[in-house]
């Protein structure tokens, strides 16, 4: 079961480019992603020192190719484990492809597991600053966004309380507010529109629609609901077991996915 551990790492991620004239926001060229599975943690540790430790490669994505134009809104469909989240993670730059090439143009803002990604020792407001600093913004720049974020998250006096006192819904609201407020060029949304109560969901939908309406922003969407997808997206990509099964207009993609689930 042992495979080569020397897979080529070809990746060009350039999210820092301010001005980019390229037509595509995201390009995948024959991308595969394999997770190395070891028998236990001991084997994983030993693998640091020797390449000969037996392991099993579990492919989350195999030979995926697609190009997404600037300003497109694309939905990814698939059962659990189809490889949707891995694709979004690689676009975000959090995970790295095992083979193939990924090109991303523009500032990526990701909503991956909304409730996570904050430091629970800090207050909501401090986390806004922390997030901004990590992205390389100056304190003045963050200060300008602060009010927008605070207002959108609508956490009232909780904004100055440590994050560990937040409910998961409150964290999600803050996460969503941060992600949509930093002027993303590529917005990655992983099942994020189902946070909070009905009123907040409505607010989120309105905000996402507003972002999609700006024609330079690319939105990538993962959802199980074909209804929500049809509302926002123009194109759908259906994945199964790490392969792309269908890539086309959203209505056809939705039908294909519903049909696949029905079987």
């Amino acid at each position: 079961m042992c495979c080569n551990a020397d897979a080529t790492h070809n990746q060009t991620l350039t999210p820092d480019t301010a001005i980019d004239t390229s037509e595509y926001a995201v390009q995948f060229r024959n991308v595969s992603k394999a997770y190395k599975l070891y028998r236990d943690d001991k084997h994983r540790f030993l693998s640091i020192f020797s390449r000969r430790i037996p392991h099993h490669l579990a492919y989350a994505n195999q030979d995926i190719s697609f190009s997404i134009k600037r300003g497109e809104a694309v939905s990814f469909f698939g059962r659990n484990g189809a490889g949707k989240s891995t694709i979004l993670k690689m676009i975000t730059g959090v995970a790295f492809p095992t083979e193939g090439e990924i090109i991303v143009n523009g500032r990526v803002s990701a909503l991956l597991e909304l409730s996570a990604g904050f430091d629970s020792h800090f207050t909501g407001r401090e986390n806004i600053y922390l997030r901004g600093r990590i992205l390389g913004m100056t304190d003045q720049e963050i200060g300008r966004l602060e009010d927008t974020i605070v207002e959108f998250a609508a956490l009232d006096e909780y904004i100055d309380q440590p994050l560990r006192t937040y409910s998961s819904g409150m964290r999600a609201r803050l996460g969503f507010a941060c992600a949509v407020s930093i002027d993303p060029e590529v917005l990655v949304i992983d099942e994020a529109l189902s946070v909070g109560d009905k009123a907040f969901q409505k607010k989120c939908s309105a905000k996402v629609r507003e972002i999609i309406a700006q024609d330079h922003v690319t939105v990538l969407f993962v959802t199980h609901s074909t209804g929500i997808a049809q509302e926002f997206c123009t194109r759908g990509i259906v994945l199964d077991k790490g392969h792309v099964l269908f890539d086309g207009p959203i209505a056809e993609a939705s039908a294909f996915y519903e049909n696949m689930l029905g079987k």
Partner: protein
Amino acid sequence: MMEIVRDHWHYRRQIFKLANTDLAKTYRGAALGWAWAFIKPTITVLVFLFAFTVGFRSGQPVNGYPYYVWLITGIVPWFYMSDMLTGGAEAIRSYPYLVTKMKFPVSTISTFVSLSKFYVHILLLALTVLIYFIGGGRLDLYSLQLPLYMILMFVFSTAWSLLAAPLSAISKDFSSLVKSVGTPIFWLSGIMWNPDTVDNKAVEIFLILNPFTFLTSGYRDVFVNKRWFWEDPAASIVFLVVLALMVALAVRTHNRLRREIPDVL
């Protein structure tokens, strides 16, 4: 290697900001807050002074300086190094969201954690200089060596963190191992006893190979022993070789594991 340097350059602003944030995080939530940066080391120093002067009835002056000056000038760099020994190894573990939730260069985590602890070291060092003055010390040419040892210690500790943090993130065993070697290193490295008075060939060789001995002795050479680093060329060269090995190993481990860390964390 180039990639690590490039990441540090691109993220230089974030590194300093995050070092401040890390510092704030360490002393947050305690009523005494910042005071803990001083209280903990002060208690440790007082306990050792008591044990060695009252208990063991040792604690003789060294090179004309009171024992407490000798003790503090060696133990203050150790406080930073022992903080880095465990805290540096835990660097990635304590910032999982920088690895799994956003695009952030993993290698810089070690650097800002190290920097944050180094700020505390500088404060304690200022206090040390004050105590050195009280103990009859004066500024002299030897004081010029201090920045050199500070930089060497910072580089050494940061390289250690770069090496240990990915290993620690992947293996719980490694992180437990690191936590358990702190005390042995402390007692074996000539921090509480004078390595100059050792009279055993094997131990002498061990101390020359030991980077912790080199660094704490270096601080003491500045304040107490009044020695230049070139007066013991063997020790200096060996330290530089150990440091180079550490950096090479750290870079290799980092390159090997960088892409895997987000998958296992």
